[in-house]
């Protein structure tokens, strides 16, 4: 996405509509939001301007509004003169507290957008941080297919023609859900959280050689798709190569790195007659087991080692 401007506040950003109403300063709507950080301007209103983060979004809650309301007309002019001498990015008033006309006049003159929100300050901030973090998150577009298999976000990768889409189709038919086919936008929401979504344009379309492009949502219904899913494992599909040693134990865990985050990773060789969807379902369930602390391969290995020691002692 290109430059993020204040205009998004009214047009809606991403999936969440912040439900903001513009009161004044329309001329400043094309200003760019460069940081997702917020500022409570209480100290600035009280006259303390050291470290005043004017380039952030200013949140006026109950405290700020109450402070402004008790000012005498003369004091107001002084406070607003000082406050608006900074190139403030924009102000958001929560609880639908409408600032006085003088404040709006200043804002209008200096093209500083003033928004009104119905929400409480805490609710608004929580929601805003959630929305803005995702926008400022690092992202990458991958040529892969993302499917929610038993609640596990499985990213299928592999060369074109190896059967990613066909595998996804079969998984969908078995009740799993498609997020995106052939193009997945991955965002690093947090140091340990990768969120994958399909392309806005492609939505839930899938290309199956021999049929062409089909709309999964229309054919299989709303339960067959979802818009986003956390990526919890990566499965590389590759043509069966008899010279490659495939993992037979699952004792060593391999990692696939996306945006500096390590994701559990397995390679599944594809060959006619091999039921890939069932293998993927099993891999996903095994991943879930590992998450709750059960590692099948390791446990069997431990048991055998114990048995060997005990038997050896007899």
């Amino acid at each position, binding site marked *: 996405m290109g430059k993020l401007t204040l205009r998004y506040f009214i047009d809606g950003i991403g999936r969440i509509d912040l439900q903001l109403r513009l009161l004044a300063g329309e001329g400043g709507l094309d200003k760019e939001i460069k940081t997702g950080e917020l500022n409570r301007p209480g100290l600035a209103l009280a006259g303390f301007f050291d470290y005043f983060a004017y380039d952030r979004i200013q949140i006026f809650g109950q405290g700020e509004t109450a402070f402004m309301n008790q000012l005498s007309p003369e004091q107001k002019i002084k406070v607003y003169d000082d406050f608006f001498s900074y190139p403030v990015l924009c102000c958001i008033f929560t609880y639908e507290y409408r600032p006085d006309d003088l404040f709006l006049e200043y804002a209008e003159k200096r093209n500083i957008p003033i928004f009104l929100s119905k929400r409480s300050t805490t609710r608004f901030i929580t929601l805003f941080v959630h929305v803005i973090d995702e926008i400022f998150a690092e992202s990458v*577009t991958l040529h892969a297919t993302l499917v929610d298999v038993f609640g596990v976000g499985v990213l299928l990768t592999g060369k074109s023609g190896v059967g990613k889409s066909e595998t996804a189709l079969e998984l969908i038919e078995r009740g799993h859900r498609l997020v995106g086919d*052939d193009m997945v936008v991955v965002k690093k929401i947090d140091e340990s959280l990768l969120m994958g979504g399909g392309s806005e344009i492609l939505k839930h379309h899938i290309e199956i050689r021999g049929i062409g492009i089909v709309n999964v949502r229309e054919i299989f219904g709303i339960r067959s798709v979802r818009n986003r899913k956390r990526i919890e494992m990566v499965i590389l599909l590759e043509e069966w190569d008899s010279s490659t040693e495939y993992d037979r134990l699952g004792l060593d865990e391999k990692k696939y790195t996306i945006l500096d985050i390590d994701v559990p990773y397995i390679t599944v060789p594809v060959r006619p007659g091999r039921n890939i969807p069932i293998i993927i379902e099993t891999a996903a369930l095994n991943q879930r087991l590992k998450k709750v602390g059960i590692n099948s391969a390791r446990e069997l290995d431990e048991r055998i080692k114990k048995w060997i020691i005990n038997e050896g002692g007899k």
Partner: protein
Amino acid sequence: MVERDVVVNSDAGIHARPAMMIVREAMKYQCEITLIKDDIEADGKSIMSVLGLAIISGSKLKIRASGEGEHELVSYILNLIENDFKV
């Protein structure tokens, strides 16, 4: 590796049929082929991937190939785009 820049001029951009023309040719080659628009990379052998780039008239594209037949494939695709997919 071969890399070329091109601007798409066909009025309709790269919609389904033009995408198919690129992909169909790309599949004949062993090399990897990537179409890049605004830092987003698409696999030139996948229709959905190419369509996902949302290439419109005026879009700047980078075409990158590496492997067997890279030169032939890139020049074929450049030719397609420069001739507005009229072959």
